């Protein structure tokens, strides 16, 4: 994306939390911003990359992105790094020692927790990193606060020479609300000041930094006690008071407008005196926090009487429908069981599907046709291969885990699995993120695993971001492009065990997989067709089903393309006397892009290029909202 003219100061704009943080990062005069895409954090860096005067990059993983930001902050510039919650697991190695060196230029790390699991493999609470790494944590409750707190975080970061975590959740990152923006203030870095006792963390030096870190903890706690980000709103109904943070604050205010509230914006180190003050003000104090009982546990350890996860769930968002009945029960009030007035209808689920003509369809269709496989999967669009109709992925844990898990499945195989073939499936970006090391480990330790490296030239699941595999940088400009075949050979995979295959050519793909799984060695099969949502993909002539030729065999449905629809069902008694179900189909030709995957398993040749009887109405670009 090209740089655009940023909206003028004092504009009031409808912004997502991500957009608000990006704006504040620009206004704060940040010089370097780095990230790896991950829902719900991705748009922060996407938007930052549109602002002028900031170096922005997609890094290969979160650890590298944090290290890039650390380097810029060491150099005296303001720096920014963002990631989803699980990204910090990867980056934490750097964080845990960064806390000892501290920073010179301000460094803010925005972590987006996927509370409610809209698009993640777990639901972890990033506020723990504040305690673990002894760094301050800010928790905005909406877009305006995300903007304000980002600016405040840079001031705090430089005052205490400490990185600041901006803890967000999906309900901040992806909610749009009004934000009043300000001016950009240029920040000029002082340059890197060589100081090995501070920046070279060997035991002798690190040991001297640890007491400084604990001293800083005390100073930060005092700062939190007087911070305007931690406010007691006295309220008028003193039966119950709340200690809360993040989006849960909005839910509390919505549900109990007259209750006293301590709103924690600067929640780590915890301002204990403020918490005591709130507790003293009310009959009962309830901690409402998403998601772990962190504040609650700390307060209970201090002897402050609070209620928390005793009455609230340990998982998911604490929205009004959760809060209201829990508090009503605590007060001994009748719970309004009547609402909602009608029960939710019990209908079919609509899980996410792969796109029409997605190159992964060919891979999973083929894997579903090969018997005797245990398939170690990974994180990306292709995780959907675990679902119907393919059911061709057996594990999904963390980025790059398909490699190590496949190796462990191979070495740890039980008697029942002695004839099973182990396959690992990983995408291009995930491979570059954390898969390369696992592949090297497989080669070094002589694994018997076939790796499918699905190179679709994009970080597909997060919206098709560029990566080192497609030769474009964050601005879409030309960048060096990694050659996956050369890369895996360099990691030690034998020349004859590396194959590049077009995933739309099913017979070749089938034969390659079937042959390679039989070889007791590490093989890598690279599929090389682009994601259908990026500009590298070119549509072909669509197909249609000739109704009179369709026999209802349903083979095409096994491909799993969402453009194929069942028109009618039937039953047929085979010569053997076995009754089989028939599904007669049609192709939605208006969305078909002619990949030809469904044509290949069609037994009666009933799928042919679409030949409209009347001229097609050309779809004009940009005609609707």
């Amino acid at each position: 994306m090209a740089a655009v003219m940023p909206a003028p100061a004092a504009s009031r704009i409808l912004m997502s939390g991500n957009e608000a943080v990006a704006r504040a990062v620009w206004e704060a005069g940040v010089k370097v911003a780095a990230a790896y895409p991950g829902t719900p954090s991705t748009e922060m860096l996407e938007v930052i990359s549109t602002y002028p005067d900031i170096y922005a990059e997609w890094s290969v993983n979160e650890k590298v992105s944090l290290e890039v930001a650390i380097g810029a902050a060491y150099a005296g510039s303001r720096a920014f790094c963002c990631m989803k919650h699980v990204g910090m697991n990867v980056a934490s190695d750097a964080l845990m020692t960064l806390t000892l060196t501290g920073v010179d230029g301000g460094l803010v790390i925005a972590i987006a927790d996927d509370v409610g699991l809209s698009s993640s493999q777990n639901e972890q609470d990033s506020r723990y990193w504040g305690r673990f790494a002894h760094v301050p944590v800010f928790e905005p409750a909406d877009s305006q606060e995300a903007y304000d707190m980002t600016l405040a975080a840079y001031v705090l970061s430089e005052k205490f020479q400490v990185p600041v975590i901006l803890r967000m959740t999906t309900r901040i990152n992806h909610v749009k609300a009004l934000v009043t923006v300000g001016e950009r203030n240029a920040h000029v870095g002082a340059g890197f000041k060589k100081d090995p006792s501070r920046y070279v963390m060997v035991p002798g030096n690190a040991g001297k930094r640890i007491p400084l870190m604990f001293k800083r903890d005390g100073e930060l706690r005092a700062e939190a006690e007087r911070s305007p980000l931690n406010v007691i709103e006295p309220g008028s109904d003193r039966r119950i008071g709340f200690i809360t943070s993040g989006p849960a604050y909005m839910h509390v205010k919505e549900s109990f407008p007259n209750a006293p509230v301590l709103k924690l914006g600067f929640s780590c180190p915890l301002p204990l005196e403020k918490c005591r003050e709130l507790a003293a003000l009310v009959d009962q104090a309830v901690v409402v926090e998403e998601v772990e009982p962190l504040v609650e546990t700390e307060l209970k350890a201090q002897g402050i009487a609070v209620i928390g996860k005793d009455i609230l769930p340990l998982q998911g968002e604490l929205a009004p429908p959760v809060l209201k009945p829990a508090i009503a029960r605590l007060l001994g009030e009748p719970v309004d069981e009547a609402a909602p007035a009608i029960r939710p209808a019990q209908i079919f689920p609509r899980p996410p599907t792969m796109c029409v003509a997605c190159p992964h369809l060919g891979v999973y269709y083929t894997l579903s046709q090969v018997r005797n496989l245990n398939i170690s999967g990974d994180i990306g669009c292709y995780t959907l291969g675990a679902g119907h109709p393919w059911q061709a992925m057996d594990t999904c844990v963390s980025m790059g885990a398909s490699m190590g898990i496949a190796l462990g499945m191979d070495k740890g195989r039980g008697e029942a699995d002695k004839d099973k073939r182990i396959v690992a499936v990983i995408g291009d970006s995930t491979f570059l993120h954390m898969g390369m090391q696992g592949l090297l480990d497989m080669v070094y330790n002589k694994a018997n695993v076939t790796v499918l490296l699905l190179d679709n030239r994009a970080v597909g699941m997060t919206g098709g971001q560029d990566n080192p595999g497609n030769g474009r940088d964050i601005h879409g400009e030309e960048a060096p492009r990694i050659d996956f075949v050369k890369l895996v050979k360099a990691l030690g995979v034998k020349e004859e065990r590396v194959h590049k295959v077009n995933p739309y050519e099913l017979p070749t793909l089938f034969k390659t997989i079937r042959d390679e799984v039989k070889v007791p060695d590490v093989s890598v099969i690279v599929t090389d067709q682009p994601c259908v949502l990026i500009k590298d993909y070119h549509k072909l002539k669509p197909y249609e089903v000739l109704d009179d030729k369709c026999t209802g065999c349903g083979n095409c449905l096994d491909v799993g393309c969402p453009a194929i629809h069942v028109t009618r069902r039937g039953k047929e008694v085979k010569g053997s006397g076995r009754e089989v179900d028939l599904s007669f189909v049609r192709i939605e030709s208006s969305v078909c892009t002619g990949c030809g995957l469904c044509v290949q398993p069609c037994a009666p040749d009933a799928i042919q290029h679409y030949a409209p009887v009347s001229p097609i109405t050309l779809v004009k670009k940009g005609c609707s909202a």
Partner: protein
Amino acid sequence: MSGTTNILVVGIGGQGVMTATEILAEAAIALGHDAKKTEVAGMAQRGGVVSSHLRFGPRVLSPQIAPGEADVLLAFEAAEGLRWMHMLRPGAAALVNDSRFVPPVVELGLYDYPSDPVGQMKAGGRRVVSFDATTIAQGLGDIRLGNTVMLGAIADQLPFSADVLLDCVLKRFQRKGEKVVALNRQAFESGRAAVGAAEAAIA
């Protein structure tokens, strides 16, 4: 919170649900309201369920609409309307595009698509207005006009004039030229008319 209007827009990833909600938010903001818009989208880009919440009024706190508290439900697909029907408050209206988008799990025979989703919605005791936005859009020459048809459909169910919403819709297409603006105006009016006709039929 009193004085807050809750609009729930639902459909399937890729239908333009979030854009439609954003345009509704812009209209509310243009009138000086505070507004918050949020999605329960999941991996919705991949054809999953999308429900987009818009709340506006003097000051909006929680961005989420609680079950039984939506003032209007705008459903881009019939079964999705049924899925979210319980979100409506008693007496509130659902405006439903009566065309069906059948997901692969139904095509594979794992689940059934409800035989009469709109009928089932009506049986719930809410005011249900159905129309075929997809066919209307196709009739105007581009299926993607469906989004504007849907915005036209909700235009007379809002606590502000339809013209404010129409302005916000057309602003989006200004740089695409006169012809596109005219087509969208037509789509918007067709959506309004379809709801008007359906309501007259109910009455």
